[in-house]
């Protein structure tokens, strides 16, 4: 393949911009013809994260930020899991007195809020922050400082929620905090305000990552990675990011309206003064349903990466899978009312949403059949990541089936707010997202750490998780059909739900132990695992072309892509592009559709300002639950930190 194939024989230049009032282009050493050792020295000096605490706090390396995100999200998973364990102990028998109703309300709210906003969304986005730049063959994510900022906002929002919990000030109104329960009349104190501002924090963070991901995929793909050669995982993250962009503003509007009603006396949700309580539900679920797909779509991307690597063939129906992702992303916006069937909506409206809820099963079904076909036609090698994919198939399909059941209004009315619904959404969320995530952890851990996790412990982990999960959640379908409502802190012995609840709690304990084993396997693998090498699974996408863990600059030279599984197509030698500067953080900007090389652009250098900006924004949010004037006082520090962030400092990266 010649360079003309990649660059395209065409004139992409506008009238020569160099004629304007520009400082002359600085020349620096290029990688062309440079030997590997000096290339590594140059690039390492240019791209490394500075040492020391100040350096660590200034890091803009997508891998460093992603690792922090992953670890933080894992900590929140453990905390949210402990909430669940506490609730299961309380419910393990009738009328246990371990936890009172007030604490129980905080527990299930914190469990939901933590799992949805502090674990599930951040961890799928964090995986994307780590993998997307590697998979598209670039050196850093787009807008690296925005990415760093997003992490600081996220961690401060999470800390805010959990410190509130420690102070007995945690939200106690459920993870979706319906008015009027969360409104000024029925939720005195600051608990609902904590919910509202914590939501705003985490959504700011999530939106920032979504924009950075979209631009990375659009503009930073390696030469030759035209739309038809983008890996499925990257497609999944792209579609997810678009869903985030159009869904997350809805929850920010909801939480802002709520805090305005509570703080300055607006009446948006107050029916006595011309507002409407149901408006809250519409706005919340306009976000809340796509949210499910924000968590699920990246997981399908992970499955689409794991299956070809172990089936030993490219994915069957690549185009069909991409189109399914689009279809699911679009349809996810047409389902929100099915969360509101019990509110007495007009029949025609309810029927429309029943139809669209059933329709989304079609593209999801297409995905499942494409994966099965890939496995059918391949020569599957059963390793731990693939086991978790099988677990995903089994559990997610059951969750999908109860989903189709719940899409029908009469059934939904019957089981609304019972444990049947609790069982359904845990099957969908844990089956659809956590099992693929665990598979992904085993699959990409060698890339991130350079070491393998234990296969034997991995199998134990899988079976413990699979059995524990089903033991904990399958009986919830039954107890829900028997009429046990969700969000009750106890139940009388006469109802006869004691034994099944004890069984559920035992399953939950087993499931919890599977995570203890997983944590052990992670730590053990990181410290003592066998060395992984660049490509332990002999997989085909670009993240496996570089060392494990990847160097700060990701690739010594930007790869040139010739196939959907580039490493399988080019077994002898990887085609690469040359000509970038090595003394400045230069990376390649390419065209959106064909990925023709277009611009050598500078990527941002490390900076402490994103942290300072996050502190200013976080302080403002925190203060604002006490007085609306916080927005006025907070404006000055926010403005100062943002100017500090964007003002050029005279690095080579700021020139040109």
């Amino acid at each position, binding site marked *: 393949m010649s360079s003309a194939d990649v660059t395209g024989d065409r004139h992409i230049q506008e009238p020569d911009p160099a004629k304007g009032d520009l*400082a002359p282009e600085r020349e620096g050493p290029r990688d062309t013809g440079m030997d590997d050792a000096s290339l590594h020295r140059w690039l390492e000096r240019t791209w490394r994260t500075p040492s020391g605490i100040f350096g660590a706090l200034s890091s803009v390396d997508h891998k460093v930020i992603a690792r922090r995100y992953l670890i933080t999200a894992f900590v929140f998973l453990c905390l949210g899991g402990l909430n669940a364990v506490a609730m299961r102990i309380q419910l393990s028998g009738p009328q246990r007195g371990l936890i009172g109703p007030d604490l129980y309300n905080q527990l299930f709210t914190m469990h939901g809020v933590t799992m949805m906003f502090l674990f599930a969304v951040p961890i799928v986005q964090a995986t994307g922050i780590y993998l997307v730049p590697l998979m598209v063959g670039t050196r850093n994510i787009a807008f690296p400082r925005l990415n760093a900022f997003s992490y600081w906002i996220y961690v401060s929002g999470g800390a805010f929620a959990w410190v509130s919990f420690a102070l007995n000030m945690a939200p106690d109104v459920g993870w979706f905090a319906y008015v009027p329960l969360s409104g000024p009349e029925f939720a005195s104190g600051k608990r609902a305000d904590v919910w509202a501002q914590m939501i705003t924090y985490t959504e700011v963070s999530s939106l920032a990552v*979504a924009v950075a991901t979209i631009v990375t995929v659009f503009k930073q793909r390696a030469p030759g990675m035209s739309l038809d050669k983008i890996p499925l995982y990257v497609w999944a993250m792209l579609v997810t990011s678009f869903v985030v962009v159009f869904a997350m503003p809805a929850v920010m509007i909801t939480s802002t309206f709520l805090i305005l009603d509570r703080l300055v006396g607006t009446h948006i949700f107050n029916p006595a003064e011309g507002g409407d309580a149901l*408006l809250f539900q519409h706005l919340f679920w306009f976000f809340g349903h796509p949210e499910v797909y924000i968590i699920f779509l990246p997981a399908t991307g992970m499955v689409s990466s794991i299956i070809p690597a172990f089936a030993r063939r490219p994915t069957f129906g690549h185009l069909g899978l991409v189109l399914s992702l689009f279809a699911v992303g679009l349809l996810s916006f047409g389902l929100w009312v099915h969360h509101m069937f019990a509110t007495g909506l007009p029949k025609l409206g309810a029927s429309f949403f029943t139809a669209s809820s059933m329709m989304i099963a079609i593209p999801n079904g297409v995905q499942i059949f494409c994966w099965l076909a890939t496995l059918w036609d391949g020569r599957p090698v059963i390793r731990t990541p693939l086991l978790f994919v099988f677990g995903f198939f089994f559990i997610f399909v059951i969750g999908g089936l109860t989903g189709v059941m719940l899409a029908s209004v009469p059934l939904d009315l019957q089981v609304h707010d019972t444990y049947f619904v609790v069982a359904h959404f845990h099957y969908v969320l844990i089956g659809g997202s956590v099992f693929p995530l665990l598979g992904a952890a085993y699959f990409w851990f060698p890339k991130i750490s350079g070491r393998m996790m234990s296969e034997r412990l991995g199998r134990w982990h899988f079976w413990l998780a699979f059995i524990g999960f089903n033991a904990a959640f399958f009986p919830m379908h039954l107890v829900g059909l028997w009429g046990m409502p969700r969000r009750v802190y106890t139940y009388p012995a006469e109802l006869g739900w004691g034994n099944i609840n004890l069984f559920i709690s035992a399953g939950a304990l087993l499931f919890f132990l599977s995570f203890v084993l997983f944590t052990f396997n992670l730590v053990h693998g990181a410290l003592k695992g066998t060395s992984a090498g660049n490509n332990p699974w002999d997989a085909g996408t670009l993240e496996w072309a570089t060392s494990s863990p990847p160097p700060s600059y990701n690739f010594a030279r930007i790869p040139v892509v010739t196939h959907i599984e580039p490493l399988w197509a080019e077994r*002898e030698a990887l085609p690469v*592009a040359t*000509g970038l500067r090595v003394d400045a953080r230069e990376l390649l*900007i390419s065209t959106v559709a064909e990925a023709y090389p277009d611009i050598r652009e500078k990527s941002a250098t490390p900076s402490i300002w994103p942290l300072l900006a996050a502190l200013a924004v976080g302080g403002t949010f925190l203060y604002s639950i006490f007085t609306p004037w916080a927005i006025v006082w907070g404006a000055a520090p926010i403005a100062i930190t943002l100017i500090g962030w964007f003002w*050029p400092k005279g690095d080579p990266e*700021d020139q*040109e």
Partner: protein
Amino acid sequence: MKQRAAADLSGLPTFGHGPRSPTWWGTLGFMALEGTGFALAAGAYLYLALSWPAWPLSAPQPNHWPGTIVTILFVVSLVPNHILHRYAKQCSMVPVRIGLVVMSLLGIAPLVVRWFEFPALNIYWDTNAYGSMLWVLLGLHTTHLITDVGDTIVLTVLMFTRHGYSGRRFGDVGDNVFYWDFVVLTWIPIYLLIYWAPRLG
């Protein structure tokens, strides 16, 4: 893994304007999410307006004049904004500096008039839900206006320093032009909703 050189990037330029630049796409992304926020806030207004037959809840009509003046200022500002865009693409320093000063002033002017818009709504945010929605819509747009004017002023100062002689800074000017169009464009439906929708009923 062994490597072989297959493409040469050394001749590529170091910056590009408009859709060639990642910053342009980032700006577009933020417009998309902020635009969604505007659309949902407007949707919430319409939802309430259609839910209540007595809308606007027997409140007095807002005085549209301050809002109309802001609208006229916005529309007029689009002309120098796009002249500025042309010079930014040519990386021409003197006209860009003049254009940025003009655009800073044309940003401050509607902000001053905006101050008089709030009392002209003739209702407080805590009177009823109609008042709340007017303040929310106007407040949401004002936040965008303040942010963009602040951004324009900082960029103006920057272009008067030595850092201005850089293709990427001229690209930033182009993106600033782009974002101002967005601020103007989002105002039109909000203007109609705040001042003219109550007159329909």
